[in-house]
């Protein structure tokens, strides 16, 4: 690390890393701006992909897509390196740090010792920034922590080289050439258009608004399922939504912040600031949905699956209106 690095507490790991990294290399973009420009907002319900026996529910785009979309949309030259074995991977990271670079890395949460026991699950797509090393520890700027943390060499290497779903393969990434400034307007329009179209027009019922409605249907069907499974499934939805990288509501709030910032860039564009408010509302609705589930799980009464499904469908209705609003903006700037 050559210059001083400022750690920022972020809501989401990948957008947090990219925002901090770009800022360090001279391009000042907030976390929400990075998230928005990368079109990271989404919804996917993949009942046939199982994690811990539960279907995959994602409220944002696939891991690495923020890195890749920022590279493409902002013309940032980035290098992504993966490794065939641990030794090479550790050596390369040390070399890059020696050169004074700060380096993004993909890791498994479970093997990072600075994570408290309560948060350690086998999730392989956690992003962090390695900013320095001494003779036994790396200094890490982990965006979801308030302060920088230390992690010994062996532990980070283990976390970088777990195998399985979304295996990081030691992934390291860092920019080689960062533009000093970017004309954000055209990128914003394009990125918003992409999100709105994906959410409204995906023809298959696993992604976008249709995906949300499929999940609602699956919730309704829980009535006929075994009780223990039904409860775990409901809990799983909320964990995917709230706990894993801030999830559904959190991402809607980040997106609302992105839209607010964008509205200012477009001379206080009214449609964007209205859309921003709408996404704040949608985020609140997701949290109400989560609360409803949490209460049902705690209560001794029979769970009203229909009511929970209905709530999710009404979130989908509201979210649909928000994307339609975004398309109005896109039309204006065609």
């Amino acid at each position, binding site marked *: 690390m050559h210059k001083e690095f400022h750690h920022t507490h972020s809501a989401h790991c990948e957008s947090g890393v990219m925002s901090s990294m770009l800022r360090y290399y001279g391009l000042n973009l907030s976390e929400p701006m990075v998230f928005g420009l990368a079109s990271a907002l989404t919804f996917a319900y993949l009942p046939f992909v199982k994690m811990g026996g539960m279907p995959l529910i994602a409220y944002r785009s696939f891991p690495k897509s923020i890195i890749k979309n920022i590279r493409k949309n902002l013309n940032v030259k980035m290098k992504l390196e993966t490794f065939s074995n641990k030794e090479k991977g550790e050596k390369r990271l040390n070399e890059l740090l020696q050169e004074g670079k700060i380096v993004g890395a993909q890791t498994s949460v479970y093997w990072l010792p600075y994570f408290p026991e*309560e948060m350690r699950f086998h999730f392989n797509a956690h992003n962090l920034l390695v900013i320095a090393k001494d003779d036994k520890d790396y200094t890490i700027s982990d965006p979801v922590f308030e302060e920088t943390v230390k992690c010994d060499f062996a532990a980070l290497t283990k976390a970088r080289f777990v*195998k399985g779903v979304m295996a990081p393969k030691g992934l390291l990434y860092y920019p080689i050439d960062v533009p000093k400034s970017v004309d954000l307007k055209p990128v914003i329009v394009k990125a918003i258009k992409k999100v709105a179209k994906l959410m409204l027009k995906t023809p298959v019922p696993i992604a976008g608004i249709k995906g949300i409605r499929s999940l609602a249907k699956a919730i309704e069907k829980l009535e006929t399922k075994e009780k223990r499974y039904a409860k775990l499934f409901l809990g799983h939805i909320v964990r995917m939504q709230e706990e894993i990288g801030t999830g559904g509501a*959190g991402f809607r709030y980040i997106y609302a912040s992105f839209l607010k910032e964008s509205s200012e860039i477009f001379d206080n564009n009214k449609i964007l600031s209205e859309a921003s408010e709408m996404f704040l509302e949608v985020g609140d609705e997701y949290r109400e949905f989560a609360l409803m589930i949490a209460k049902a799980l705690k209560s001794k009464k029979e769970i009203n699956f229909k009511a929970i499904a209905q709530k999710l469908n009404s979130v989908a209705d509201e979210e649909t209106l928000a994307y339609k609003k975004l398309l109005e903006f896109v039309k204006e700037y065609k």
Partner: protein
Amino acid sequence: MDINAVPQDDSTTYANNKKAIYARDEDGNIRAVSSSGWEAEETVTKQALHDLQEHASEAYNDVKRGLKSPLYFHMYNIRMDLQVLAESTGFFKWSIKKDFCPEKFAKISQKRLAIYADAMGIKEEDLQILPKKDTDA
């Protein structure tokens, strides 16, 4: 959500950490603020942790009664399941299931044991025994 509505529920599952969440401040700007926890999230995290603990303690008893090999307990104890263990080691599920059999596991090859040990972050000799529980005395 407004900044003053951001829950500060001091959830034990945050273990004294805070999470950043974006909310609207008095001036109408949306910025990141720290949250010390949220009850709804705590409920489901605890549910998941409880489920993992239950698996581990059921496995512990099975191993103790000689129904399963120590590997079976260690897998659940590090919050894995058959799927994750198979992915982490590159072994087929059916072949791992064989290693859950105590007699079979007792005769495991050094090479195979080493792969388990590496993937699970547990020493080879520890992997072959059931650790003592505080309640065992």
